């Protein structure tokens, strides 16, 4: 109370980092010694547990706290698998903690806290003790482990996704959406108990960053809800009231978060503090940051009736006075039959000056996909201008036909999407097991009430309609109020349905650059990177996860066409997480102009998110590829053609100079446009690989990997998609290995499956050594001090191979078994991702990335 409130008004004015001081390690120790309430003996070591920091990162506040594990499998079922060793250890844990719980006394907490961990009745680890820190970049929890065992857990063999900038128990401040404070309960004996009760209590209060005087009363726990569906729960130890308020750790953290997780201006974001230089290693992604990128796309699509305009070379836009009337992207494509000045004049009538922008053309007649905003409210009575605009677009179509799809009538508003997202997230972030079961009882009805799948269904429907229009060689115009939200969704989906190039990783990233970044989806407002303070309603109406809606639609396509996409669902999930990494500029800005200003004024270092090597190791990047993807021959030829035309212009150049002589003479291209007719007349997009998805709600499902991955209670250990993916990867790696053996004429390094198929023993020394080891380990086994009776294998499984018997546990060449079904997300357990996996991964990835792979070369019988 005392120190916090004294400083407060000062802080609110300046909002800087320096006025916040992290408690010294010494302070903590002092309270620990004097307090009647027993802190864990490790507490004096809390200062050792500092989070790893980036350059430019500063600690704002830190406090000892308990972090709660998310809702775990019922009755501790998840923490052991069938293997001998682990079941025996889990037994010992169960017995040792059974007594320390449930007394609800002051002293009870110390027995559990002795090794810094607490357990619920079922033997599941309920909370971990450690140091919670708020920095200007992230909220970090560093557990204080009882021994070195936990230290050694995240080793190289851990194949779960790691991030170079974030640890497993860390979230960026950008990711934090809502914070709930749980105030002190009258008769709660311990912090843990209070936090447990908090699920039902009315003392759970939403933290309003604008009004910090809300923070009265002691805060015993915090619930933090992240934009990526993660729920973090922390509990703080209560202090004796005689002691100063400085040790009200809950309040310390809460007020630090209130200030730093909700920046009022974007330049307070960590993006500006992180000044590390960036050296691009990016190849293959079109950034659409230059005129040439657009021109290449025009050529690839064979769109001859359109021209690229760069704002920087239009004289009118050089005039400050005039330019301020427009909110145009730096480059855009307009009908060639329209003078640029005329176009600019017309565009003033439209919201955000978004008159018809070309984005894509399909088919031999190059029917175009066009994005258009609605007329400004002031000029809505007069639809003449809109008609003129549409007439200009129509002129570009070979058959002079056009279909206008008004998205505003057909699709939810941004507010609707936000509401649906909130409801969906509530279903995915239950605070207590009781809440989880309550939701579960009415789950389908609740899911329907969120409307999320309805909106996904509507988007897929509109995209299918647009794609069908283009396939019928009719130009399609998508119209939406400002042309920057659902237009992006429908336009991108349409192109995904039509064009296999966009289903490759490079192509998909180029598509996001084109539709979302270059044509300026307002990421900053929609993702809530800046907190709008003046009124709560304004903030609500601006924020909306339109991009997540798009990713969900893509995920549904991936479910319906599992072999059509080069990327995996892991890639899509990672992309949603990447939206909250301020270090990468891709999803940080509303417009290109804003980005340019940030670079010039705020000395921001631009760092595209597509350079995944910045965030992830090689093995993490491997999970971005889909093992089922088929790079069919038709597509292969086309993409190679495409690459060639990118590099040298290809043969199209020769063809077109003769063919396009006529129009060249008539329309004189002005010096600030590139005339694509100089290069090509024919689309190089293959036309036999379009997708026709189902958009019925009953054919859609919930994106479990993205939405449920923080709920271990829904983790199917050893099941789900990852297991199937691994199976495919194993097959691919076997094929690659066998092929290599044939190529090299050496048969030393054959895959295990080969020996199994041939019914042979693997002759290598490695396995012999393994067997020796196993024999040494086997003879005696103790469980809780009782020798376990070991039965000799009673002829496991009549006639079946021994692998089907019950007794083979340690044996077998590899154990692909206990991976999380959210893998590479979800929570790893010891030894569940063995090193052999890495081998399989790299083997299969080799084959997947090799475009001229043997899979395509040799026909499969």
């Amino acid at each position, binding site marked *: 109370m005392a120190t916090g409130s004294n400083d407060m008004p000062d802080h609110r004015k300046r909002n800087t980092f320096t006025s916040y001081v992290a408690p010294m390690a010494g302070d903590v120790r002092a309270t620990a010694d004097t307090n009647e309430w027993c802190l864990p003996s490790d507490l004096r070591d809390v200062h050792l547990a500092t989070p790893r920091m980036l350059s430019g990162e500063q600690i704002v506040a830190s406090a000892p706290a308990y972090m709660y594990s998310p809702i775990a499998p*019922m*009755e501790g*079922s*998840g923490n*052991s*698998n*069938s293997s001998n060793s682990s*079941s025996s250890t*889990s*037994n010992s844990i*169960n017995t040792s903690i059974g007594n320390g719980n449930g007394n609800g006394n002051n002293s009870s907490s110390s027995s559990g806290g002795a090794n810094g961990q607490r357990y619920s009745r079922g033997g599941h680890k309920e909370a971990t003790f450690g140091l919670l820190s708020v920095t200007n970049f992230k909220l970090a929890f560093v557990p204080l482990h009882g021994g070195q065992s936990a230290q050694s857990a995240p080793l190289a063999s851990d194949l779960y996704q790691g991030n170079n900038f974030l640890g497993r128990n860390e979230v960026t401040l950008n990711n934090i959406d809502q914070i709930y404070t749980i105030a002190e309960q009258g008769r709660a004996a311990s912090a843990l108990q209070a936090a447990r009760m908090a699920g039902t209590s009315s003392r759970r209060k939403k933290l309003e960053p604008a009004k910090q005087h809300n923070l009265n009363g002691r805060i015993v726990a915090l619930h933090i809800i992240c934009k990526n569906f993660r729920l973090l729960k922390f509990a703080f130890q209560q202090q004796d009231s005689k002691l100063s308020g400085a040790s009200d750790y809950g309040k310390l953290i809460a007020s630090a978060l209130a200030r730093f997780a909700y920046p009022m201006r974007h330049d307070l974001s960590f993006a500006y503090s992180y000044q590390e230089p960036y050296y691009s290693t990016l190849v293959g992604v079109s950034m659409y940051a230059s005129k040439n990128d657009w021109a290449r796309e025009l050529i690839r699509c064979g769109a001859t009736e359109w021209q690229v305009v760069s704002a920087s070379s239009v004289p009118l836009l050089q005039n400050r006075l005039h330019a301020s009337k427009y909110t145009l992207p730096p480059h855009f494509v307009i009908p060639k039959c329209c003078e640029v000045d005329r176009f600019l004049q017309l565009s003033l009538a439209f919201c955000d000056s978004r008159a018809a922008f070309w984005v894509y053309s399909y088919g031999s007649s190059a029917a175009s996909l066009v994005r258009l905003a609605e007329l400004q409210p002031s000029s809505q009575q007069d639809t003449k201008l809109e008609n003129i605009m549409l007439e200009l677009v129509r002129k570009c179509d070979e058959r002079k036909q056009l279909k206008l799809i008004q998205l505003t009538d057909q699709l939810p508003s941004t507010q609707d999407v936000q509401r649906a997202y909130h409801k969906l997230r509530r279903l995915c972030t239950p605070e207590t097991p009781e809440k*989880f079961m309550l939701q*579960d009882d*009415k*789950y*389908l*009805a609740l899911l*329907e009430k969120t409307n999320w*799948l309805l909106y996904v269904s509507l988007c897929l429907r509109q995209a299918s309609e647009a794609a069908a229009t283009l396939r019928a060689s009719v130009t399609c115009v998508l119209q939406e109020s400002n042309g920057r939200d659902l237009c992006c969704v429908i336009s991108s989906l349409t192109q995904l349905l039509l064009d296999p190039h966009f289903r490759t990783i490079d192509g998909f990233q180029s598509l996001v650059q084109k539709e979302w970044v270059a044509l300026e989806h307002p990421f900053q407002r929609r993702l809530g990177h800046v907190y709008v303070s003046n009124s709560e309603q304004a903030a609500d109406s601006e924020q909306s996860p339109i991009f997540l809606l798009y990713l969900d639609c893509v995920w549904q396509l991936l479910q319906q*066409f599992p*072999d059509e996409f080069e990327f995996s669902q892991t890639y899509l999930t990672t992309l949603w997480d990447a939206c909250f990494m301020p270090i990468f500029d891709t999803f940080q800005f509303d417009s290109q102009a804003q980005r340019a200003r940030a670079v010039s004024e705020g000395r921001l270092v631009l760092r595209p998110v597509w350079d995944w090597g910045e965030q992830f190791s090689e093995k993490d990047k491997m999970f971005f590829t889909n093992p089922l993807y088929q790079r069919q021959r038709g597509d292969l030829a086309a993409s190679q053609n495409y690459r060639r035309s990118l590099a040298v212009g290809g043969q199209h150049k020769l063809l077109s100079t003769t063919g396009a002589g006529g129009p060249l003479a008539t329309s004189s291209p002005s010096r600030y446009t590139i005339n694509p007719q100089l290069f090509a007349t024919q689309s190089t997009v293959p036309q036999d690989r379009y997708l026709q998805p189902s958009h019925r*709600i*009953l054919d859609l499902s*919930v994106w479990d990997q993205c939405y449920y991955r923080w709920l271990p*209670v*829904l983790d*199917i*250990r*050893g*099941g*789900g998609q990852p297991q*199937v993916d*691994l*199976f495919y990867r194993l*097959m*691919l790696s*076997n*094929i690659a290995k066998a092929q290599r053996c*044939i190529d090299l*004429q050496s048969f030393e390094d054959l895959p*295990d*499956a080969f020996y199994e198929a041939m019914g042979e023993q693997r002759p290598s020394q490695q396995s012999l050594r393994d067997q020796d080891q196993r024999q040494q380990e086997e003879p005696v086994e103790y*469980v809780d001090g*009782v020798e376990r009776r070991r*039965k000799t*294998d*009673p*002829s496991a*499984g009549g006639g*079946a*191979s021994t*692998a*089907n*018997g*019950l*007794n*083979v*546990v340690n044996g077998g060449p590899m154990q*692909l078994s206990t991976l999380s079904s959210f893998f590479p997300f979800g929570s790893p357990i010891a030894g569940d991702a063995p090193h052999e996996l890495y081998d399989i991964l790299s083997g299969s990835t080799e084959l997947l990335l090799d475009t001229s792979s043997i899979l395509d070369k040799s026909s*499969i019988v």
Partner: protein
Amino acid sequence: MDATSSSADKLASKTASSNSLDSSSKSSSLGSKHGAENGQQRDTPFVYLDGEEDQDQKNDVTYVCPYRGPVFGALTITNYRLYFRSLPLRDQEPPVVVDVPLGVIARVEKIGGATSRGENSYGIEIFCKDMRNLRFAHKQQNHSRRTVFEKLQANAFPLSYSGKLFAFAHAAAAAQPSTANAAVSAGWDGWAVYEPLAELRRLGVPNDMWRVTKINEFYGICDSYPAVWAVPKAASDDFLRRVAQFRSRCRLPVLSWMNPRTQATITRCSQPLVGVSGKRNADDETYLSYIMEANAQSDKLTIMDARPSANAIANKAKGGGYESEDAYKNVEINFLDIHNIHVMRESLRKVKEACYPTTDDSKWQTAIDSTLWLKHIRCVLAGAVRIVDKVETMSTSVVVHCSDGWDRTAQLTALSMLLLDPHYRTVRGFEVLIEKEWLSFGHKFQQRIGHGDNKHSDADRSPVFLQFIDSVWQVSQQFTNAFEFNEHFLITIVDHLYSCRFGTFLCNTEAERVAEDLKHKTISLWTHINSSLDQYLNPLFPSFTHGAELVLRPIASVRAVRLWRGLYCRWNPGLCTPQHGCQRTRELLSKQDLLFKHVNELRLKLNNRSNNMQTTTRLASPMH
């Protein structure tokens, strides 16, 4: 032998969710060929089964198809099936075909009278056990409806009309010694799949704690139990007789499964006859302590009562009840909250309402939610997972019962055994599991399904076994590569659960089956399945032999279970979704096999050459 085996390859590549019964009729080429000739008797476009004979044939019947509207065509009724084919239409559309085994029919009703007006208002409506209704319209003038109705009644409900089920006629006609011998020698014979003693031996019984007894060889002690039991060694036969008296219908605790490694067991029984007064029985208490002591790993015994606790208490009024923790030492009792057969029947009826004939996409989720079917499935799964936890994680023995121990108990024991023991996840193992836990322990199939019986509103009918198959499907969806069989295998089992073509699911108990001599007078479903195994295999299964997790713990949450559209919604052509991925799997697997063979050849060649080299060098240098 029949259409299914001949078109096995076609089926294998098709979606697994297709109907296993009318596999031949789905191919349109067959249809167009025979469409014009439907007037002739023996040239109908389906393949007659052995022993199948025409009963009635009508050429001027309209099938009121809920999807394509009324179609005019010919109706054939045999002693096995009802078959309708529409007359060829002008626009090259494939004809509408309805092919329903009569065993599937639950109820036949006349609609409209002589005076009813309007098109297609006079005819017959057929309600099926497999989630569909069929409506045929007849002309009022020619009395065609009467004979059809009578033939349907007589052949669909033979037991109500003192006839015999088709399975007997089928087997009698198929009884050619050559085929029967072929089945036996090829190891297909379904009646030989389950050998109680061999199965017990696989589990390590008899051993120093458990013995096998044939005390019930003539079904004298318990008429709904099998002939062979495994019981604790400490219990003598006389003792067992006394214990049986304290259990409902004498169904005393008998071994279902044992973990050969830890010796934790699953035993099953019926409720104890405690009654309102809270009777105790020293023998029963001792017997349970024997079961506990047979497992050295734990000093506790867990009783899983499948019922909701309120129901268990209510059963005391009828003389039943549950074990009190005071009377039984070291026993812990849990209630698994699974509702009774009547609740399940009602729930499935609602599922049918939501799925057939049409669905409302915008209200789909709420409609499914309100059936509560998924919630019931969740309860069964959760119960099984709890049993698995006790047996595997805690190494505690578990006793499972409900009221009579033949419905919910069978679900729980069979499902938990499936989760615990990978053997039951193979085709053969699953057949054994059904034979053992469902058939030999007396799940009353005859009563629950009502084979050949016209009492369609009988309160004893209930989809208990279907619910078990659904639960298995849920597990197979969560662990895609843990099962040797595919969805089509499960659908085939459900289809022949009703069809009465095979003897497997006839009668209520093992005693009745022996009395009826089903083994010799009917064919087993497993013979049929094992003779064309390819179409029932899951291509993803091979990966599981790589030492993958042996115990499955499915997620029992409505978030993780789904409505089985491949089964419940399969009659709606709009709801069939093509399944991807399978084709690619087969491609990759065959590619891998080809390469392996190639490698092997090359390697052998290389080995031969180097062997030759070695021998030549040896010859060349005689010093060695």
